[in-house]
């Protein structure tokens, strides 16, 4: 599913992995360069599920997050039924990644089979955040954010 729709994205210099997650943090499909260890995907995916879940709950108008790390970069894009994660080298051309994702996402969403599959996926991301996966600081931050949101 990644390759037929996101081929242009996988061909961008520096892109090393493309992963599609459903809102339960299950991997729908993935593509990686050879010698890449895919076992880390769920852990990374869960972090972004938390972030996107909160963004969704707070109704923030934000669908993309790019975070550079010491040895690479993570580009993520959320959609109502799923989210996409791209792992790349720091040297990757981020606007080109965004352009390729924009184009691929449109084709992906308008495909008949995909639309059928997306109908089966569901569940809001926020309600998939398991408190057991949060540390104490994250729990306090989450409580504070929700309190502020409720107060306003």
């Amino acid at each position: 599913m990644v390759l037929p729709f996101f081929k242009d994205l996988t061909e961008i210099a520096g892109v090393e992995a493309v992963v599609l997650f459903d809102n339960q943090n299950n991997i729908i499909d993935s593509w990686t360069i050879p010698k890449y260890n895919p076992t880390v995907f769920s852990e990374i995916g869960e972090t972004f599920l938390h972030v996107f879940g909160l963004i969704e709950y707070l109704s923030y108008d934000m669908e993309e997050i790019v975070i550079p790390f010491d040895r690479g970069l993570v580009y993520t894009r959320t959609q109502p039924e799923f989210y996409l994660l791209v792992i790349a080298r720091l040297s990757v051309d981020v606007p080109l990644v965004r352009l390729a994702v924009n184009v691929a996402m449109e084709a992906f969403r308008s495909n008949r089979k995909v639309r059928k599959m997306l109908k089966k996926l569901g569940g809001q991301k926020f309600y998939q955040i398991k408190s057991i996966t949060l540390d104490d600081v994250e729990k306090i931050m989450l409580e504070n954010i929700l309190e502020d949101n409720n107060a306003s």
Partner: protein
Amino acid sequence: MLPERFRIHEDMIFKLSHQRSPSEVKLKSMEWAIVTQLNGEKTVAQIGEILSLNPDETRSMFTRLMEVGLLELVNVPERNPFVPDEIFDEIEYQLTYFLGPVAGIIVDDTLTELKRNRKNMEKKQLAFLVELLTLEISSVEKRYEFQKRMLNKIKGIV
């Protein structure tokens, strides 16, 4: 004037040389900081950004590290990093389809905002230019169509 082998470009990538250890050389603290950032993946510009150095400081420190033999070049920047002229004709043609005859002016205005022109636009900025031009199109469907056409044109160039 530095010899070409010592000239540092912002998209060069270095790793620590096996020929010499940093402990053999007297380094300033910021030069040490650069040494710790070398991993064969980060460009000179990225390391400068991480360490909050301006381009001149970054270049001079990399030049010094190069001179004392601590750096090994991993990649050489492209000889011609500029976008070929004809791609702008294509961008203008496609944009005219969506925006009408003002497309050429919008392309040139956007290039000016980027402090570039049709002769000195670097390939690595091309996708960003397309992104900025896309914002000029109000219809979501037309934006998608423009991006799709542009991606097909530029993916072989950048």
